[in-house]
């Protein structure tokens, strides 16, 4: 698990309370609209995302930057940098 500080993002996918596998489907859609180098932030309360999203990035050639916990909103924030 790679923990980082909260960082600025170019787009956000708010997946809190939304069921699995939305945490994989919606980020994939949003990444299509980003340019290489831009960052996508994913908000989720789904523990499974902590493994699924890094694995999805590895499989699809995207850079997983890391995650942090957002205690105020009871969710995780995960960051992906678009590679291509």
């Amino acid at each position, binding site marked *: 698990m790679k923990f980082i500080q909260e960082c600025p993002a170019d787009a956000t996918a708010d997946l*809190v*309370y*939304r*069921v699995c596998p*939305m945490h994989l*489907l*919606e980020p994939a859609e949003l990444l299509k609209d980003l340019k290489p180098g831009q960052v996508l932030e994913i908000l989720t309360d789904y523990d499974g995302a902590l493994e699924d999203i890094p694995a999805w990035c590895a499989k699809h050639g995207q850079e997983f930057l890391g995650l942090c916990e957002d205690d*105020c*909103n*009871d969710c995780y924030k995960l960051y992906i940098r678009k590679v291509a």
Partner: protein
Amino acid sequence: MSIAYFDHAAATPVRPEVLEEMLPYFRERFGNPSAVYDLGSVIKEVLEEQRAKVARLLGARPQEIIFTSSGAEANNLAVKGAALAHLKKGRHVIVSGIEHHSVLNAARYLEKFHDFEATFLPVDRFGQVDPERLRQALTPATVLVSIQVASNEIGTIQNIPALAAVCREAGVLFHTDAVAAAGQIPLNVEELGVDLLTLSGPALGGPKGVGALYFRKRLRLVPQIHGGIQEDGRRGGTENVPGIVGLGKAAELAATELADKGPYLASLRDRLVEGVLKAVPEVIYTGHPKRRLPGHASFCFEGVEGEALVFLLSRQGVYANTGSACASKALKVSPVLCAIGLSPAVAQGSLVFTLERSNTAADLEAVFTHLPPAVARLRSFSPVWHKKMAAGGAGP
């Protein structure tokens, strides 16, 4: 016997154009929109087209529409889903005392199972919620307010922009149940200033078994039906594709016809009200006389049981209702009529007419012919009425 049907709020025929649009989705276009093959993906595209049509009716964005099984489900998702998604802020909801049972009971559910406090706001004698009274009811723990656009029982239209503005200033979510108002008056979510809005298919001339919830983009909702990724993971269950297609078509028609339909219904309604008030003594026209739905007329006949009146009229081919169809068999005095200050003896005699484009002047004549003798007959065996007459027949 021809019928004069005035219970469109309870059920209305699916419009022929709507039915035509739906039929292929029961037969050759049967695919599941979640399937990855072409039979499914084309249906997914159809669903998104319907979402856009419903969004257009409301001045919303397609991604702000969730399809549901009914207005009641949409109200549940709005009240429970939004309140539970914002527990960090507090556990207080406010609803008006004259909401549909799906809102009232959703608020009671939050009280009973999630330690919420629910405030049931009073209304004035016309059924209006005072924005200042709403402001006073807000607390730092208030997460959601739900007040209907218009009442299905008394037709009164609320000042939603003013009520929603009070909530926006306080950072509180505002939901409105627009089931009774949809297809009768314009509904634009930006002009209304609401965060959530409920629609149902039948109210627009669409089929039963389908509804929709508008939710402002980025607003979090806890799903109330847990399942798969349908509706972007916010509402599980395979979509009712024919129903949604019907709702989409009905919304499209409503958007184009509203400008002509409202004045037509209002003119018919005004003639109905004038005729009934002239023909029957001791009758109260309930709800607001001006700020009301164009296709809505509601009365209370003192000394009469509304159920009996509905039954007698139906035997003459005139169909109306005592109030909300959901509660009409309960034989209880309507909480809405009590909330506007009517005594139980008067409220028992409730009769509601909900009009549609299919109603004509001939339907009104049927009411004028059959209503006065039906009321007179019921009053002739009413102890309440005889007592009143013996006391001098004073008005309510």
